[in-house]
C-alpha cells in the first residue's frame, strides 16, 4: 500500500516559487496557450497527459487536466478528480469564470488534497511531482489536486542495520511512505515536519522532522538555515545533502548518522535529534551524530541490558581491531619482537622463512586484496557475489599461503580486521575505519609503536576537533559527562536511563504475594517487616495519585 498524503505539498510549492527563473510567470488566460506552454516546457514529453473536458451543460467551460502518467495514482485521478469534475461541476458553470476555481475546489472536487496555484512554476512543479493540474479557460489560476502515487517499492526489511529482534520494516524511496512509517510509531502532536524542495533541477522534497520540545530550537534553526543554504542541482540521495550541511568536510569520520530503520529515527527524535528525510531514498539522516552513536544498534534496546553492553563492547573492540590490527602486527614483528611470547615468535619466524615480501608489503597487499574482494562482493549481482567470496576468501587465501607468498598469520590478521569491519553497525563508520587502517599501517611500518601512538594522538585530536551541529564529536567521553555515560559504552537498564523518574515508577512491580521469598523473612527479621510496612504505605499512597 503506498501512501498518498504528502503534507509537504504546500510549503514545497512555496519553495519552488523561489526558483531562479526570476520574474513570476502566470498562466495564460487562454487554455490552449497554457497547455501549449506546458507541453513546450517539458519538451512534448510523451508521458505528460492532457485531458480536455468541458464542464457544465454545452457549450460548457473548457478545461483541461494535466498530469504525468506513472506518477499519479490512476484510480484517484479517475474517480475523484475527473469523475467529480464531470458530475458535480454542472451547477457551478453559471457562475463567472473567475470564481470557478474556488467553487470547484469547495464543492466539486472529491480529492482530499487540492489547492489553487496562481504561479506558473508552481503548477509545473506540481505536475512534475505527480499532482494533477486543472486548468480552466479564461482563468489564470490552476487547481492542483494531490494525486501523487504510482509505483514504489513496498515496505520491506532494511538491507543494512539488521537486527535479530526488533521491527523488520525499513524505509522505502517514497518520502510519504517514510513519513507515515515514522508517524505510525510516534503518535504525538509534538512531531513537527517542515518540507522544502532542494535541487534546482531535481526539486527533491526534503522534510525536516523533529519533536517540538525535545529538539532544541537552536538546533532546528541551524539545520533549517543550513538546508536553505544548500544550492545544488541534484539531490538523488541523502548523502548529497549530508555532505553539504555537515560541519566539516575534510574528515573520514561521518558526522551525520543515517538509517533505514524507522524505529531508530523515532528513538533519535525523542532524544532530541533532528531527522532529514529525502524523497527518493530510504536513508534518513539523523543529526547531530556523535561518535558513540555509530556503535549503537536498534537491537541494544530490545535485548537485556547486560547483553547489550556486551554487544557494544564487542563493537568498540572491533573498531580498535579494525584500525590497529594489521599495524600492531607489523609493529610487533618488525620492531618489538621481544614482546611476543617465545613460542609464538618461533612459530611466526618459521612461517616467515622464504616469504618474499617484507611484512609491511605483505600486509599492504593483503589489505588491498581484501578491499578488492569486499568491493567486488558488494557490487556483484547477488548470485555471483557468493562465488566471488568463495573464490576470494577460500581459494585465493589458501592458494596464496600454500604458494608461500603470504604467511598464514597475515591471512589471519587481515581476515580478522575484515570481520571486525563488519561488526560495526554503521557502514560509514566502518569505511572510515578501513581508510584509517592504511594510515596506521604506514606509520607502523615506519616507526613501530612510536608511529602508532602519535597516529592515535593525532586521530583523537582530529576527532576532538570535529563537531556535529555544535556537539563535540567525542561527547560524552570528551568533554566528560558522567550522566551521558548511561547510553554510550554502557547501556544501562531502562529504568536507570530515564531521567527524573524513579525505578519504582518505571518498572512494573509484582504484588507482594507473588514475589519470590524464602517465606519467613518477615518472621525472622524485624527489619524486613518494617520495610514491608513502609512498602505497603507507599503503595497506598501511590494508588491515590491520579494516573
Amino acid at each position, binding site marked *: 500500500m503506498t501512501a498518498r498524503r504528502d503534507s509537504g505539498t504546500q510549503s514545497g510549492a512555496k519553495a519552488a516559487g523561489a526558483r531562479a527563473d526570476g520574474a513570476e510567470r502566470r498562466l495564460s488566460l487562454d487554455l490552449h496557450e497554457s497547455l501549449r506552454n506546458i507541453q513546450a516546457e517539458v519538451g512534448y514529453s510523451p508521458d505528460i497527459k492532457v485531458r480536455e473536458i468541458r464542464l457544465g451543460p454545452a457549450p460548457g467551460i473548457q478545461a483541461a487536466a494535466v498530469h504525468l502518467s506513472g506518477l499519479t495514482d490512476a484510480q484517484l485521478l479517475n474517480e475523484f478528480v475527473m469523475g467529480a469534475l464531470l458530475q458535480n461541476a454542472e451547477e457551478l458553470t453559471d457562475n463567472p469564470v473567475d470564481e470557478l476555481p474556488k467553487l470547484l475546489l469547495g464543492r466539486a472536487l472529491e480529492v482530499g488534497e487540492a489547492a489553487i496555484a496562481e504561479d506558473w512554476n508552481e503548477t509545473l512543479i506540481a505536475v512534475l511531482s505527480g499532482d494533477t493540474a486543472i486548468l480552466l479557460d479564461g482563468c489564470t489560476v490552476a487547481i492542483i489536486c494531490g494525486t501523487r502515487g504510482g509505483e514504489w517499492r513496498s515496505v520491506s526489511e532494511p538491507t543494512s542495520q539488521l537486527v535479530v529482534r526488533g521491527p523488520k520494516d525499513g524505509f522505502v524511496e517514497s518520502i510519504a511512505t517514510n513519513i507515515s512509517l515514522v508517524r505510525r510509531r510516534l503518535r504525538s502532536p509534538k512531531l513537527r515536519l517542515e518540507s522544502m524542495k532542494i535541487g534546482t533541477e531535481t526539486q527533491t522534497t526534503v522534510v525536516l522532522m523533529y519533536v517540538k520540545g525535545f529538539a532544541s530550537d537552536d538546533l532546528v534553526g541551524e539545520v533549517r538555515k543550513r538546508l536553505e543554504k544548500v544550492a545544488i542541482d541534484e539531490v538523488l540521495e541523502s548523502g548529497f545533502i549530508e555532505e553539504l550541511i555537515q560541519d566539516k568536510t575534510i574528515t573520514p569520520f561521518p558526522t551525520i548518522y543515517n538509517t533505514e530503520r524507522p524505529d531508530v529515527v523515532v528513538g533519535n527524535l525523542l532524544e532530541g535529534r533532528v531527522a532529514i528525510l529525502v524523497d527518493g531514498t530510504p536513508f534518513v539522516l539523523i543529526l547531530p551524530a556523535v561518535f558513540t552513536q555509530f556503535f549503537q544498534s536498534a537491537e541494544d534496546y530490545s535485548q537485556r541490558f547486560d547483553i547489550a553492553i556486551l554487544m557494544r563492547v564487542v563493537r568498540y573492540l572491533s573498531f580498535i581491531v579494525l584500525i590497529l590490527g594489521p599495524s600492531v602486527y607489523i609493529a610487533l614483528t618488525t620492531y618489538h619482537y621481544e614482546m611476543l611470547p617465545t613460542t609464538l615468535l618461533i612459530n611466526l619466524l618459521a612461517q616467515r*622463512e622464504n616469504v618474499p615480501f617484507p611484512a609491511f608489503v605483505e600486509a599492504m597487499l593483503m589489505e588491498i586484496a581484501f578491499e578488492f574482494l569486499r568491493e567486488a562482493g558488494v557490487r556483484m549481482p547477488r548470485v555471483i557475489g557468493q562465488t566471488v567470496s568463495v573464490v576470494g576468501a577460500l581459494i585465493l587465501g589458501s592458494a596464496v599461503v600454500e604458494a608461500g607468498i603470504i604467511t598464514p598469520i597475515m591471512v589471519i590478521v587481515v581476515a580478522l580486521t575484515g570481520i571486525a569491519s563488519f561488526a560495526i553497525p554503521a557502514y560509514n563508520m566502518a569505511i572510515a575505519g578501513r581508510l584509517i587502517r592504511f594510515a596506521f599501517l604506514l606509520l607502523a611500518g615506519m616507526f613501530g609503536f612510536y608511529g602508532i601512538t602519535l597516529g592515535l594522538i593525532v586521530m583523537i585530536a582530529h576527532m576532538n576537533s570535529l563537531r556535529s551541529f555544535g556537539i563535540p564529536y567525542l561527547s560524552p567521553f570528551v568533554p566528560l559527562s558522567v550522566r551521558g555515560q548511561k547510553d554510550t559504552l554502557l547501556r544501562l537498564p531502562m529504568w536507570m536511563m530515564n531521567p527524573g523518574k524513579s525505578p519504582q515508577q518505571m518498572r512494573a512491580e509484582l504484588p507482594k504475594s507473588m514475589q519470590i521469598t524464602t517465606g519467613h523473612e518477615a518472621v525472622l527479621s524485624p527489619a524486613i517487616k518494617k520495610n514491608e510496612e513502609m512498602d505497603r504505605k507507599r503503595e497506598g499512597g501511590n494508588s491515590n495519585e491520579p494516573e
Partner: protein
Amino acid sequence: MNRNRRGIPVRRSLLLFSALLALMPLLTGCWDSVELNRRAIVSGVAIDRGETEADKYVLSFQVIVSEEISGEKARGIAPVALYTGRGRTMFEALANASRQTARFLSLGHVRVLVISEKFAREGIRDIMDVLERESDTRLTSLMFISKGQPAKDLMSTMTVFSKIPANDLVEKLETTSKQFGYNYRMEVDEVIRGIQIRGGGPTINGVQTTGDKENAGSNDNLKTIAPKAILRVTGLAAFKDDKLKGWLEGETALGTALLQNQVKEFPSLVEDREGGYIAFNVYQSTVKIAAKAKDPEHPLIIVNISQQAALKEGPSTLDYSDPEVIEGLSDRLTAETKNMIQLAVQEARRLGSDYIGFGEALRRENPRGWNRVKDHWEELFKTCEVKINADAVIRHTDMRGNSFQVNK
C-alpha cells in the same frame, strides 16, 4: 570562526603532511625495522672464561632454528645452532659471534644465561654490567652457574622435552622450584642486587650435564630411552660480592632457600623411633628475618619460620589419630627445619658471605647502627647471635589415618 580556519595554514599543513607522507615510504625498511626472517633468535647464552686476556670472554649463543621446531619444511637438522665468539669484552665477543651468523643475533628472547664456574670464581661484575645495560636483553633471563664444566657444554646438550635446550633448562628450574627443590628463579636484576648487598652476595643456581658428555650435542643423545646425557639443575652457588665462594647442596641449600623465602614445597623426613622414616610434604613455609640491635655491634638476628605440612609417607605403627602423636611429630619437624637453617647459617659463615640477608634485616631495624657496622659486617656476621623460632603444623595425614600396619 569556522570559515577562518579554512585559510592558508590548512593548505600549508596539508602540503607539509603530504610531502612528508610522500617521503616516508622511501624510508620504510630502514632504521629499526627488521623483518623476522632476518633475525636469529638467541635462546640462551653461555659465558666462558677464555685462556688468555685477549679472548677473556667466550660467548656461545644458542640460536633457534625455527623451521626445525615448528616449520613444515624441517630438514631434520638440530633445532638449535651454537655460535661462539671470543673477545676482550662481552660486546666484542658478541660482534665476533655475530659475524659468523647470517642474521642479526637478537637477544630479546634470551631466557638462560650460564656462566662457567671458572668465571664465577674470578668475578662476574663486568658481565652483569652488560646484561643490565643492554636494552635488548631482558632482566627476566635466568642465571645459572655451570658446575665444574664449561658453560658451553650446557648450551649444546640435546634435551628430551623441549627442542630448545635453554627452554628445557627453564622448565626444569621451574619444576624444581615448584616441587621438591631448593632451586629458585634467579633473574639478572636479582643477581645484581645480590652483588650490591654489603657483605653478602647472590646465590645462583648451578647446572651441569651428567652422563656421556661426548655425544650430548647430537640427536643420538635422544635415541635411547634413557638419554645419555641429561641437563640437571643442581646446587646453589654462593657468592661473596661477585665471586663464587662455594656450592651449597642438600640440606644446606634447602635451608638457604628457606631463609630466602623461595621454597614452595619440599619433602621433610623425620626418623621414626622404630627405624625408617616418616615423610612430610611441607607445602607452605614462611620466613621472617628480624633483627634486634640496640647495640649494632652486638646484634641479635631472629629468624621466625612457620610451616604447614601434610603427612605423605608414614609406614609405622604410630597412632596418627592421636593429636599428641601429631604434636610430637610436628615438634620433630620443627627441629628438622631448625637444623636445616642452622646448617645454612653455618655454611654462610664458613664462606664468609651474608647472602642470607641478615645485614639487610639489621639495616631495616637500625639504619644508623648499620652505617656504623657495615664496613666490618663480615666479622659481625660470623659471630652475631642468631635465634631461630620455628613452628610447624601438620595439617592432615592425607587420604588415610593410621597406616594399615597398625591393624595387623
